[in-house]
Each structure stands twice: as structure tokens, then as C-alpha cells.
């Protein structure tokens, strides 16, 4: 994914040194540099208040950067008003115009561009066919369900073939099942139209499902931009490791560093070998990250096959249908999760002492939390 391996598509959008403050004291976005490639589906992911929505609003033109410049197709757009940016947008609450019918809503961006009547009719019909809602053309938005309204909002944002489509938590108001269905529909739409989509969400599973690349925001800074699998496997710091997927944290101190690996003395006792991802050197405090599905539980303490074996005590087991979780007490962390095959949790009575093992490459030494 680094430059040189594959020639990346040219950047459609470039954020260059963007800063944004609302009150003149706190920067909501601190020094953002971000390239969005033509045709990609990029997600801005982060907790609320991390600056992701502000970034989207600056791109849409509803907020002006305090510092820096945004380029759209190599043209600076900081001072271009929103209606001249040629960017489609889907809002969290759909923002369908309640006094217009579905067909009129979809026709709106075409009619303000003064397209011919016949052209508008053809394209509205095509858009309605795309979202499979031809029969709803003359209904009002208020008569539609949430999912249908969302489809119309999508069609309206796409019908004028914008260079870029922005989506601001568009599925936030839908229930889980519908949300998952819409995720797939949006992804399919992206694949068939090839349009560039910038998607904002705080839901990491939504981001993993849909995105080509994800930019993880925290505290006004992009922590990491990468493909979904790379973010999960190779987080650059504790925040990303914690925000994407489930994660166990063990605090400790680095004893020795040897090329890519290091030995860490755990605060709760014991030492383990870990991949040195984000440690400054020997003596530095660190925070280890281990995914629940990369840990195995063994009963026999003497069976020594790996360097990482720690004693653990079963606190609890949770049955979750397709899998089960064991909650263990490991080196002072009372909420250490281990993913099990369904059924395996029966053999782990509460209070039993066991051992856990994991490979050094599955244990990441990151910045202290």
C-alpha cells in the first residue's frame, strides 16, 4: 500500500495543512493533510468530537478552514461556495424536502442546473430504477420508511453525477438489520458507479465493511490512514488498536529491543515478547495490545512451546451464539478477553486457573495508554 508498490490513483481531493477552530482557543482539526483518490471509498472514522464531521463540512463548503487549503481536482476551493463545488451530499437525517414529491426531490439538482425537461425526466426515472423505487415517484418523503428515505437521499446526491459524494453518518438513524442491508447497497452502488465517496461514521464495523481506506480521527488528528485489514493487523498506536475491533491491553516496561521485537516486563508480573511497533527504546513504558482471537487457553503450565505464556484465572464466560468469550484475569487486567469456539466455554468453570499463550507477532508493543 505504500508508494512504489502500486501506482495510486491521482488525488481528487487534497487537504493541505488544514486547521479549524470555532472558538479561537481549541483546534477541532489540527494540521490535517489528507489525499482522497479518485474512485475510492474513504471513511473518516472516529469518536464524536474527533474532527471528522468538521473535516467533511469543510470539504462540502459549510465550514471554512481557519488555515490551509483544500484542493478539488487541483483547484483550490476554500473560497468556492457549496453550490458551486459539484459535490453531492447525503445527510444523517436525509434532509429530503418535505414539500416536494420523491420525483421532485430527485429532480431538484437537475432543475437548478437548468437541464431540459426530457433529460430531467429520463434521469429521474433512471435514478428511481437504480434504487428500485419507481412506484414511489409521487409520494411525499413523510410517507416513506427510514430506509426508503435514505435510498432517495442517495439517488438525489448521485443523479447529477457529482465529482464526489459525501455521506455524513447516513445510516445512523436506521435499525441494525436495515443498516447492514444499506451498507451492502451503498457498497454495491460505489462499485457499479465508480464514484468517489467520502463517508463519515463513528461505527468501526460499518467502516470496515464498506471502505477502501479508512482515516482514523482522534483529537483533531488523523491517527492512521490505511486499508481496513491493515488498520486491524497493523495499528500504529494504542488509540487505533483500541478503536478498531476488540483489543486486550497489558501495561508494561520495555526491557530490551532487538530489531522488530522487544521484551516487555508486565506491570502485573511476567515478561513477554512483542512486536515493537511504537516504543522509543529500552526502559520506556508501553502498552501491549493482543486481539482476543489470537490468544489460546491451555491448562498445562509445563507444556512450554512459546515464549509468551501467562497464568490466568477464569472470571466469567459469555456465550454469543457464533462464538463465546472467556473473561480472564491476566497480570492484573481483570477484563482480558479470549475468543473461544462455541461450546468451549463449558470447560471453563469460574475461578479455575489456566494459562494463556499467544505468538509474539500477535502482540503489539504500542505507546502507553
Amino acid at each position, binding site marked *: 500500500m505504500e508508494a512504489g508498490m502500486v501506482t495510486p490513483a491521482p488525488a481528487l481531493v487534497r487537504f493541505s495543512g488544514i486547521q479549524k477552530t470555532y472558538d479561537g482557543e481549541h483546534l477541532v482539526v489540527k494540521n490535517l493533510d489528507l489525499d482522497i483518490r479518485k474512485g475510492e471509498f474513504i471513511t473518516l472514522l472516529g469518536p464524536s468530537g474527533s474532527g471528522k464531521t468538521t473535516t467533511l463540512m469543510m470539504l*462540502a*463548503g*459549510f465550514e471554512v478552514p481557519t488555515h490551509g487549503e483544500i484542493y478539488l481536482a487541483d483547484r483550490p476551493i476554500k473560497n468556492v*461556495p*457549496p*453550490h*458551486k*463545488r*459539484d*459535490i*453531492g*451530499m447525503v*445527510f444523517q*437525517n*436525509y*434532509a*429530503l*424536502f*418535505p*414539500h416536494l414529491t420523491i420525483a421532485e426531490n430527485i429532480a*431538484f*439538482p437537475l432543475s*437548478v*442546473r437548468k437541464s431540459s425537461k426530457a433529460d430531467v425526466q429520463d434521469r429521474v426515472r433512471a435514478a428511481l430504477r437504480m434504487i428500485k423505487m419507481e412506484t414511489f415517484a409521487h409520494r*411525499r*418523503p*413523510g*410517507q416513506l420508511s*427510514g430506509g426508503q*428515505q435514505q435510498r432517495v437521499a442517495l439517488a*438525489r*446526491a448521485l443523479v*447529477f453525477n457529482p465529482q464526489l459524494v*459525501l455521506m455524513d453518518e447516513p445510516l445512523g*438513524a436506521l435499525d441494525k438489520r436495515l443498516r447492514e442491508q444499506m451498507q451492502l447497497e451503498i457498497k454495491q452502488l460505489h462499485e457499479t458507479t465508480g464514484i468517489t465517496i467520502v463517508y463519515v461514521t463513528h461505527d468501526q464495523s460499518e467502516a470496515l465493511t464498506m471502505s477502501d481506506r479508512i482515516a482514523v480521527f482522534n483529537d483533531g488528528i488523523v491517527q492512521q490512514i490505511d486499508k481496513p485489514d491493515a488498520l486491524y493487523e497493523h495499528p500504529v498506536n494504542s488509540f487505533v488498536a483500541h478503536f478498531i475491533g476488540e483489543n486486550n491491553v497489558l501495561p508494561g516496561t520495555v526491557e530490551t529491543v532487538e530489531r522488530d521485537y522487544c521484551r516487555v516486563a508486565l506491570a502485573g508480573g511476567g515478561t513477554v515478547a512483542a512486536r515493537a511497533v511504537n516504543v522509543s527504546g529500552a526502559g520506556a513504558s508501553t502498552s501491549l495490545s493482543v486481539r482476543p482471537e489470537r490468544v489460546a487457553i491451555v491448562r498445562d503450565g509445563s507444556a512450554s512451546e512459546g515464549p509468551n505464556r501467562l497464568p490466568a484465572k477464569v472470571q466469567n464466560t459469555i456465550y454469543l451464539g457464533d462464538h463465546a468469550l472467556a473473561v480472564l484475569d491476566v497480570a492484573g487486567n481483570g477484563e482480558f478477553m479470549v475468543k473461544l469456539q462455541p461450546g468451549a466455554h463449558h470447560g471453563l468453570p469460574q475461578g479455575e486457573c489456566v494459562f494463556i499463550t499467544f505468538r509474539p507477532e500477535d502482540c503489539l508493543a504500542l505507546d502507553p495508554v
Partner: protein
Amino acid sequence: MTDALLTGADASTEVPLKRRLRRTERTRQLKALALVAPLLVFLLFTFAGPIAGMLWRAVDDREVRQVLPNTLAALAGWDGKDLPDETAYAALASDILAARASGTIAIAAKRLNYALNGFRTILTSTARNLKSEPERGTAKETLGRINPAWRDRATWTTIRDAGGPVTSFYLLAALDLTRNVDGAIVAAPPDQAIYRSLFARTFIISLSVTALCLILGFPVAYLLATLPPARSNLLMIFVLLPFWTSLLVRTCAWIVLLQSKGVVNDSLLWLGIVDEPLRLIYNRFGVCVAMTHVLLPFMILPLYSSMKAISPAYMRAAASLGAPPLTAFLRIYLPQTLPGIGAGSLLVFILALGYYITPALVGGAADQMISYFIALYTTETANWGLASALGAVLLLATVLLALVYGKLVQGQQVTGGMKN
């Protein structure tokens, strides 16, 4: 409330489930009814009752019947094509004598004088000069000698038409119409035909005030709906301030401001913009200014509530879809404020129609509205019939407007698309 009760009763016979539902709902509805009952009773006595009374007075006509009963009985068979026969004259003579004895001549004279100018003199002079009951067969001649008007067919049709017990006379008069000697409806003589132009003036002043309120109120309501809460609350206090001051005080304040030696004229003179004081009050300008000031909150508040319900996301969506600000405003924002514009305009217009104090204080003779004349007829000349008829016409116009508005609003029911 009563609607809900009625529809519930209609549907109850079909399905037992509906009946059960109605039974469970009934207690709740009765409770609700009990809660609004005091207001309903209050409204019945202070609102519905007086309006019914007013409508009745507009057609009530029993004064002449009470004073001249025998005359009217004798005229019952009269075809109106010629002068009535001797029996009518004799009946009239005996009625007049009886009325003079009981002192009720003036009542009939006043009513008949409305219909035929000068009738008061005819009746009172006859009463004065008729010493005793004329001899059998000479009544026609005697009365004709006392006042030649008794030889005029119109005098007699006037008495017959005022016979009651109900009449269209006042309502026709309120519309500048009258009945001629043959009972056909014709235009009133020009010197009496003032009410149509009066209604037109009332409507024109009300329309101008409504338009002014809309033009001035729309931006204020927009600010109120879009400013951050702290500042919009302050602004709201300024909007509501007029409600805390008496109408009379506010109107008089405009007199102080606008009179020829008032603040506005002094400032204009001092600035050298005008050479002599402008006439700003006791004319149409003063009336419109003062009424707009008084009625502005009634426009702003409905506008504000309709604008408050419009999410800023709509305007953002319109902009992101390529609409320039003006287009977005005209095609997205404005249509959604239409219910507010309608409600505000209707409220201001209807209130303005009935305005009395403000035009009376700051208007000239040519700016008096219909309420001024209604007040005049009730308090000065005690012509309750005409006052009620004018009121009834005004009420009818208002109800028609309200119905039209209701139809319009129903026609384009806006259902919200936002789910928050």
C-alpha cells in the same frame, strides 16, 4: 372534542372491537370534556351568545308592528299597486291615536324614518293634527288633508315593508341596496350608498397592514429562528414587548412621534431633509404605521414557529445539490414557511378588519374603518339593526376567508421528512 365523540359514536355499531375501544375511550373523553367545560360555558355566554344576538338584531323588525298593529293587519291583503282602501286609513288613524296616548309614536317614527327619509315628520305631524277618530268613511280624506304624503303609495309600502317580524332591510342597507316601491332590490340612492366603499376601505387598510407586517416580520422571524438561543431570546423579548403595553398607550405614543411638532418631523426638519413638517398622522399613513406596529407580533410568532421547524439541513442540502442561495430560499425555504405566512397573514388581516381605537385616534375622516361606524350606530344613534347588519357582513367575510385558508392549508398538507 365533540368531533371525536361523534365519529366514535358512528363507528361503534360495526364491530364489537370498536365498541369496546369506545367504551374504554369514553371515560377519557368525558374527563377531557370536563376539563374544557368551563371554557365552553364561558365562550357560550361571552362569545356565541352575543354573536347570535347580533345576527338576530340584524334581521329583527318588530317596532312598527308593536305600534301600528291594526294598520299592518289592514294592509295584509293590500296588493300594493294602488293606494290602500278606507279600512287601512281608519286603522292607521286609530293606531296613531292609541300610540299618541301611550307615547310610542317615536319608536315607529324612528324605524320608518330609516326606510324613508322624512317619515318622522309625516307621523308626528299627523299625530299632532289628528284630534279625534275620523268619522266613518272619511279617514282617507282626513289623513290626506293633514299630510299629503298619505296620498303617496311609497308611504304605505314603507309601513308594510317595516311590518316585520323579520326584515332584510338592514342587511340590504349594509350592502348599499334597498327595496323600491314595488319591492324589487335596487341600488340605494347615492347619498346613502356609503357602506360598500367603507368595506372596500376596511379591506384595503387591512391588506396594506398585513402586507407591511409580512414584509417587516419575515426577516425578524428568520433571525429569531436562526440566531443562537441567548440572542434569539433577547430578540423575542423585544418582539413581545408591545404585548406588555396597553394598546391605547402604544397608539398615543405614535401621535407623539408623528405629529407635526413630533420627534420624527423635528428630526427631519433639523436634518434639512424637509422644509416644512410632513403630514404623518391623521391620515392613511398614520393608520398603517400604528396598526402595523400593534399587529406585528401576531405575524412574527406564527412565522417563527413555522421557521423553527425547518431544519438548517434543508438549506445545506439544497446548496450541496447546486442551488444558489436565492434559489434555495425560494424553492426550499419559502414553501415550507407558507403555513406560517398563511396563519400570520390571516390572523393579522382578521384582527385588522375589526380595528377601531387605532384608526379612530390616528386616522382622518377618510380613514375610519367599518368598526367606527358600527360603534357610531350602537353608541350614538342607537340604530342597532344597521350596526348588527354591518357586523354580520364583516363576520361573513371573515368566516369566508378563514374557510378559504383552511382549504388551502389542507390542500398542501406538509408532512415532515425529518426524523430526529
